[in-house]
């Protein structure tokens, strides 16, 4: 009886996982379909859509914009996020709970509203839409997530190491760069990767903030989607999934390998 219920739960779980991954697998498979249409049936195996993709200048330009935007967002959001997380982890001060809430609050503001608000504020300041607006906007969207991720990682670092360095004669700055920062590095990486992904993936706010003529990968795909899914989009999806899933997985595997070897 108990076993039967358990099997039922297991089957249910497997079905939910299939629901989550089947459509993604379909995109990955269709990227290699030689048919000139983006859907079924599968007519044969071909790399032609990847070749086509590499020749599509609009997509390459969008990819470059997205990567630069994501990298800059990662730098800004991670810098701000680490400073804030340090304050939350290392110090006790009055109003800490309130401050934590304020730092997380942007997550709870609907992104559409956040986008319109910033856009109207810029309009009032007579600042036109620009790459800079996208950068600031993406950074503020990523910031709460970076704070949460970094804060969770920082809590695990013991202060004894820093105190040892200080007692051995290092000044605070030396201590930070020789002890604290290397210990924080995994947190920095995790935060930066998260910020990059959030920026790279954003479409809701980006549609409002981008200047006319500037496309990121998601807005480019969105624009190409009007008629149907073209096979190039499948190929692009394949490439994007390889980057955004492959890079963190490799980073994780490398970190694990590295840790095992240093132990």
């Amino acid at each position, binding site marked *: 009886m108990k076993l039967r219920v358990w099997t039922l739960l297991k089957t249910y779980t497997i079905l939910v996982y299939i629901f989550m991954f089947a459509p993604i697998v379909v995109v990955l498979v269709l990227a290699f379909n030689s048919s000139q249409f983006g859907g079924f049936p599968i007519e044969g195996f071909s790399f032609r859509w990847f070749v086509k993709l590499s020749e599509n200048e609009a997509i390459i330009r969008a990819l470059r914009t997205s990567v630069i935007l994501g990298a800059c967002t990662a730098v800004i959001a991670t810098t701000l996020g680490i400073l804030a997380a340090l304050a*939350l982890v290392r110090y006790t001060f009055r109003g800490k709970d309130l401050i934590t809430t304020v730092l997380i609050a942007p997550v709870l503001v609907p992104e559409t509203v956040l986008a319109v608000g910033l856009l109207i504020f810029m309009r009032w300041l007579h600042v036109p839409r620009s790459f800079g607006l996208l950068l600031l906007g993406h950074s503020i969207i990523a910031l709460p997530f970076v704070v949460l991720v970094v804060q969770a990682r920082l809590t695990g670092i013991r202060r004894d190491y820093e105190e040892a360095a200080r007692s051995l004669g290092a000044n605070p700055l030396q201590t930070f760069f020789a002890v604290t920062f290397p210990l924080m590095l995994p947190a920095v990486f995790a935060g930066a990767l998260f910020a990059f992904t959030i920026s790279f993936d954003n479409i809701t706010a980006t549609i409002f903030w981008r200047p006319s003529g500037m496309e990121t990968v998601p807005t480019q795909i969105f624009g190409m989607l009007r008629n149907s899914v073209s096979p190039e989009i499948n190929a692009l999806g394949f490439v994007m999934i390889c980057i955004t899933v492959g890079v963190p997985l490799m980073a994780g595997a490398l970190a694990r390998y590295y840790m095992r070897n240093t132990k």
Partner: protein
Amino acid sequence: MSSSDQSIDKRPWLLLSPSLMAITLLVVIPMAFILVYSFYENIDLAVDKVAFQFGNWSEVMTDGYYRTAIWKTLRLSVIVTVLAAVLGYIPAYFIAMTKFRDKWLLLLLLILPFWISFIIRTLSWIHIFGNQGALNGLFQLLGLTDAPLSLMYNEFTVIVGFIHVFLPYMILNIYVSLEGIDENLEPAARTLGATPWQAFREVTLPLSMPGLAAGCLLVFVLTGGSYVTPLILGGPSDFLFGNLIYDAIVTELNWPMGATLSFTLLLLLGLVVVLYSRLMGLNQLSKAFK
């Protein structure tokens, strides 16, 4: 000037100031500007006049079109939230309770969708339900139909798209609170004579409520604020309140109306968040990251 120890320590505030400044400048002040702009008057495309009038607000309050949109948005958000909770609870329970050695793999697979592009995940459903999708392909292969059935661009596909994207949030939140429950409690209830179902209903389910509630809040607010998913997977009548904002700002260039609608959405979803934080506090929301 020996202020550092005794009185207020300035260092945390120094560390916090860049973030707090950014949030004030890029979130708080813009929200105030939305309110101010909602009283402005729209003259023409992208031209508006500084004013203090309630025209936009009275239009939003009285025009049935906007009321329909609010109703549709709440309805869809509730449907998506309930379905996500029903679909998500059992997997979360299974992952938390399983003695399976490769549990980490299940957790990794749960986080994986967060790394995959939202727009790719959303459009992938066109490959399932579309005219050239997997289902129509299957039907034709089996000889059930000659012409492709139109299964796409309706409320159902919008709901499926939303659940697909938001389900990991739900499962992760429920999992976190199930994982925190003392694993001796359910056996203890069993020894005291409870059936497995009673033990679950009286002990585990109530203790997992904070995670379930946090997951529901996230899914509700995220769905209620969306507009991209209906544009990709929905038909002309499957719009949400967010789509009206998109239309007002991007298509009609009517900024005062866009501002009024944005503030309305902020109020509606803000009300839900406030209600939740009164009941549960906001701490649970950050737990999924640890």
